[in-house]
């Protein structure tokens, strides 16, 4: 089932009642989610991603705009008529019911011709439980399960009624690091096996990048960029997106475009292939950590702080006056030999890992 969001906007009255202005949680969101894909809604907390999820589920009504499931306008439909499965951040498992009863709960709501017998319900519940691999825990109470198991029960409960759309709110945030890795693969596997259009919300860019078919980067209720994880990473539309994606984060420098070259400080660190296309003046220069090449005769000199060995790679931590970050982090191959006692380190930059941003708007300047 494809999901279409059309100029979706949600305003809340300000919490402080004296302020008449509205808080805009989601602003003019338009996006077509293709059928059967896994979509990650990504952004810092308070960016409106959870509100978007609530709008799609029907728990909240948009101020304006429309939502379509397939060709059907569901904007005014209550959640129960939309056929969505929703997994809550806190899982919302009913504490007084067993795992099986929890999974069967949505089936008990079916009425009329859809009504199932107890036996059919049990079979469906078992099927869903097998899918998430908790079929051995059916008689337990949620309090007797680990966080990861609770998460699986919550997913099974959302899947049991075969929703058209599966929504996951911060599905991994309550799990420890090891489980997080395992569960995100699990979610990806379940999604591929069921083929249900799945939308999940997260503030963790690594999580979103690793399993999503497409990611939506949001901030302050505004969608900044939509695309495949790799293309968003490679081609950020503005400085926010560039900074938000990638660990370690991108290094931002105050720079200048002059004489067809990019300057950081006094050094011209990179030539611009087609100088005529770029206006001269002050800019921000973003360099991905993997965009640095160690070179003794390199054009970019930084003050070496320390070298962190990470096995496969080596992280070179250095400083530069024009850098906006506290330190510059660059990732180079471990095969490089670095003189750790040296005061400075010299780099060349990979042109495709360097981005220019407008000093005022912070929008990307192509070069």
């Amino acid at each position, binding site marked *: 089932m494809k999901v279409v969001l059309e100029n979706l906007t949600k305003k809340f009255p300000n919490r402080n009642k004296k302020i008449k202005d509205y808080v805009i949680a989601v602003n003019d969101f338009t996006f077509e989610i293709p059928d059967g894909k896994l979509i990650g809604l990504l952004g810092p907390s308070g960016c409106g991603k959870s509100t978007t999820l609530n709008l799609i589920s029907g728990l909240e009504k948009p101020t304006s705009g429309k939502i379509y499931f397939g060709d059907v306008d569901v904007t005014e439909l*209550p959640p129960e*008529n939309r056929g969505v499965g*929703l997994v*809550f951040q*806190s899982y*919302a498992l*009913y*504490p007084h*019911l067993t795992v099986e009863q929890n999974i069967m709960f949505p089936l008990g709501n079916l009425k009329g011709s859809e009504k199932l017998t107890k036996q059919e319900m049990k079979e469906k519940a078992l099927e869903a439980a097998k899918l998430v691999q908790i079929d051995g825990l059916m008689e337990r109470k949620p309090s007797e399960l680990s966080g990861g198991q609770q998460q699986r029960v919550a997913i099974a409960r959302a899947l049991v*009624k075969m929703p058209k759309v599966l929504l996951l709110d911060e599905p991994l945030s309550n799990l420890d690091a090891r489980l997080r890795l395992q569960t995100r693969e699990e979610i990806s596997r379940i999604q591929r096996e069921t083929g249900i259009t799945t939308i999940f919300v997260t503030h963790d860019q690594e999580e979103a990048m690793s399993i999503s078919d497409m990611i939506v980067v949001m901030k302050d209720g505004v969608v900044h960029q939509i695309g495949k994880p790799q293309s968003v990473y490679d081609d950020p539309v503005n400085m926010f997106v560039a900074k938000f994606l990638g660990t370690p984060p991108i290094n931002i420098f105050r720079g200048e475009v002059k004489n067809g070259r990019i300057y950081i400080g006094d050094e011209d660190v990179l030539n611009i292939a087609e100088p005529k296309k770029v206006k001269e003046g002050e800019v921000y220069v973003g360099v991905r950590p993997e965009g640095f090449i160690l070179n003794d005769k390199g054009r970019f000199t930084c003050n070496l702080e320390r070298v962190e060995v990470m096995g496969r790679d080596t992280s070179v931590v250095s400083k530069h006056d024009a850098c906006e970050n506290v330190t510059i982090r660059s990732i180079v191959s471990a095969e490089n030999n670095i003189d750790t006692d040296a005061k400075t380190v010299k780099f060349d930059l990979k042109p495709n890992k360097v981005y220019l941003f407008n000093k005022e708007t912070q929008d990307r300047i192509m070069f």
Partner: protein
Amino acid sequence: MENDKTPKKSGKAFLSQFKGYIYLIPALAFLGVFMIYPLVDVLIYSFEEGYNFTSQTRLGVGLYNYSYVLHDTYFTQALKNTFIIVIITVPLSTGIALLISLGLNSIKPLKNAFQTIYFLPYVTNTLAVGLVFMILFKKTAYTDGMINLLINAFGGESVDFIDGPYWAKMMVMCIYTIWVVMPFKILILTSALASVNPVYYKAARVDGTSPFRIFYKITLPMISPMIFYLVITGFIGAFKAYSDEVALFGTDLNAAGMNTLVGYVYDMLYGNSGGYPSYASAAALILFAIVFTITIINLMLSEKTSITQ
């Protein structure tokens, strides 16, 4: 028990072991005189036959007091009245309170105002407001009273609720009891309902759960500990009914046929028929036994149906 190796300190250390008791002296003194001693004493009283309060003499020891009380028609009347009050008011007040709390929890405007109003009976003197109830229900030579006017408006006959037939008196009794116990129950249930995490309701809504099923399958199990708490305290409270009765029917409850167990105890002790602490003690112990048994049964039931979080 002085294992201390430095004898100089040991005296002080020994004393400090008991320093806590200095702080407890007032509490222990009051409790000893007015609770522990009476507890023993009431048992003794209840077995002392023919104890005379003025001459402080007794005839013997035995179960006669219990037998007397159990054969006393005033006692059986009081027992019957108390049981009727308990059986009618506890379920009814808990049920209505649950409905009101559910209503309160699903509105926003005026919620605070309603809560404040509903709580008022808790802070009023039951004797004083009972007088008002009496006047509202009473039929006199001058007027049939407010309630009878209301009954007449719906085509019913006037009834004297205060000096009239037994069922009428019992009805006023139960209505007033419910009116008095309601604030506590509403308060407890509203906060119990409010403490249910709204995420469960959201989850149920997404699954298309009907409101009735949400109530029956989610809300009720989650607040069931509080409901049991209310039922238990409600039983205990209703078994001790007394001052509400006095408020409506006056101090001579036996004459009105509206006495309760507690009322019987006090009347035996002091009142028109008073001066028999032995009978009073026996009656009080019987009351205690009943309340204790019912509380235990309640607790066992709540254990069985309670949820494991």
